[in-house]
């Protein structure tokens, strides 16, 4: 079965996930088309982060199906390397490698995992650092960078693998308020370049601006979803309304 570009790039169907007795995902389904930007919002503990970690096979699922470009993630024989070449991920805590400089962080995976040629990798890495607007910081260690700068290096590090989809797991939640904007700008640039993005976020204004589609999750299910305009202004479900009234 081959995947074509008109089919959803990421297709999630009836996914169930439990940690021990605690069921965090109780049948979640959603589709993401190529070039689409979707935002998943919802209260803490509603399973948003777990959902996108499942897309990258960092967590396994008990039931249901996740397909990335037609490849089933919920498969014991899954080639994780192939999946992770297609799916880039950025974490809340940046998780840069503290013993490597910014440019080395970006170069590491293409060199070690893809075994690409060093000079080409370095050239590309420097271009990516420039793209996330960190020129001049190439040789700084993560410890010498602000949170926002580290997070942009982390984005560049994921982009170095040439992913088809990018996952953003509350990437601005740990940042100082004054550096949130620069990271969001970087993501916006990416979205405008046509990158397929799945974001878990608490930045409602940003979600409204960049998302093509918003999903609201609560207690492991998708309560409501729709394009930003109708979602934010004409929410129907009482849980959505309550959440939006608290956060806006």
């Amino acid at each position, binding site marked *: 079965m081959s995947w074509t570009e008109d089919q959803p790039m990421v297709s999630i169907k009836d996914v169930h996930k439990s940690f021990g007795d605690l069921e965090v995902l109780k049948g979640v389904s959603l589709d993401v088309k190529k070039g689409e930007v979707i935002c998943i919002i919802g209260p803490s503990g509603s399973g948003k982060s777990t959902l996108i970690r499942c897309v990258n096979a960092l967590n396994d699922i008990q039931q249901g199906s996740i397909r990335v470009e037609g490849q089933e993630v919920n498969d014991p024989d899954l080639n994780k390397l192939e999946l992770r*070449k297609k799916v880039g*991920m950025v974490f809340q805590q940046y*998780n840069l490698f*503290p*013993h490597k400089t910014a440019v080395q962080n970006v170069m590491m995976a293409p060199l070690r995992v893809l075994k690409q040629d060093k000079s080409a990798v370095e050239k590309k890495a420097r271009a990516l650092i420039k793209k996330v607007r960190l020129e001049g910081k190439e040789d700084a*260690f993560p*410890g010498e960078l602000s949170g926002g700068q580290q997070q942009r290096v*982390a984005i560049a590090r*994921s982009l170095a*693998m040439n992913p088809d989809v990018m996952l953003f797991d509350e990437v601005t939640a740990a940042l100082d308020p004054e550096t949130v904007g620069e990271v969001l700008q970087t993501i916006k640039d990416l979205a405008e370049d046509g990158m397929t993005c799945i974001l878990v976020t608490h930045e409602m204004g940003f979600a409204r601006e960049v998302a093509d589609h918003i999903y609201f999750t609560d207690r492991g299910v998708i309560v409501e979803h729709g394009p930003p305009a109708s979602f934010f202004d004409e929410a129907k479900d009482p849980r959505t309304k309550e959440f939006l009234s608290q956060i806006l």
Partner: protein
Amino acid sequence: METFFEWFRVLYDDTGINLPFLYDSYDRGRMFDGFLMTIKLSLVCLFFSVIIGIIGAWLQGSSLKWTRRIINGYIQIFRNTPPLVQLYFFYFAIGSLLPKVQNDWGGQEPLLGSFAWAAISLSFFAGAFNVEIFRSGLEAVPESTVEAAEALGFNRLQVYTDITLPLAFRVCLPALNNNLVNLVKTTTLAYAIAVPEMLYEANQIWSDNVNVTEMMLFLLVAYFLLVGVLVWVMNSWERSMKIPGYGS
């Protein structure tokens, strides 16, 4: 040089301050041999204790319950009993169980001499500390950093060699250096089984010359300088390995 040494003979004649290990070439040789023996014993024990530490830390991560228990039992026994008694146990108790071998002159001699037993005993003693040091170093590498590497497609071995080990090593280094310094100090115990190290040779000299006060003060200064130089070298090494912003 000889005039420098002779000056101390004059010093002895004039003031009674007797430093035979300077003006007497025989005592000088003994003291120097003792110094070399201390260094040699320290290096041999350092080498084997690090090997024991690495293997022990690896075995402690074993999935077999009894492997872990035996390693933990080893650690607890060697950490909570006097190293001197351990040394006696090895040298006298186990040493007496081993077969005798014929030496070059047709006589019988123990399979292992006092140096070998001192090296074995002290390596196991220091090794017990190293297992804990290495293991806590490995545990100090955040799970999230490992996860970030996995998300970039690193396999287990690559995560270990590129991320976990370099970071764990830096975390271990201060404790490891501390243990090394302790090891050098602990080599004096080998005196008790007549390994001719610095303390033992100093004892020989003060027995022959009845100059305990001078030898005692010299020993204190000698160990102070030896350990002081070691601490200084280790601290410089730690500083050169330091990554900006990592560790505190």
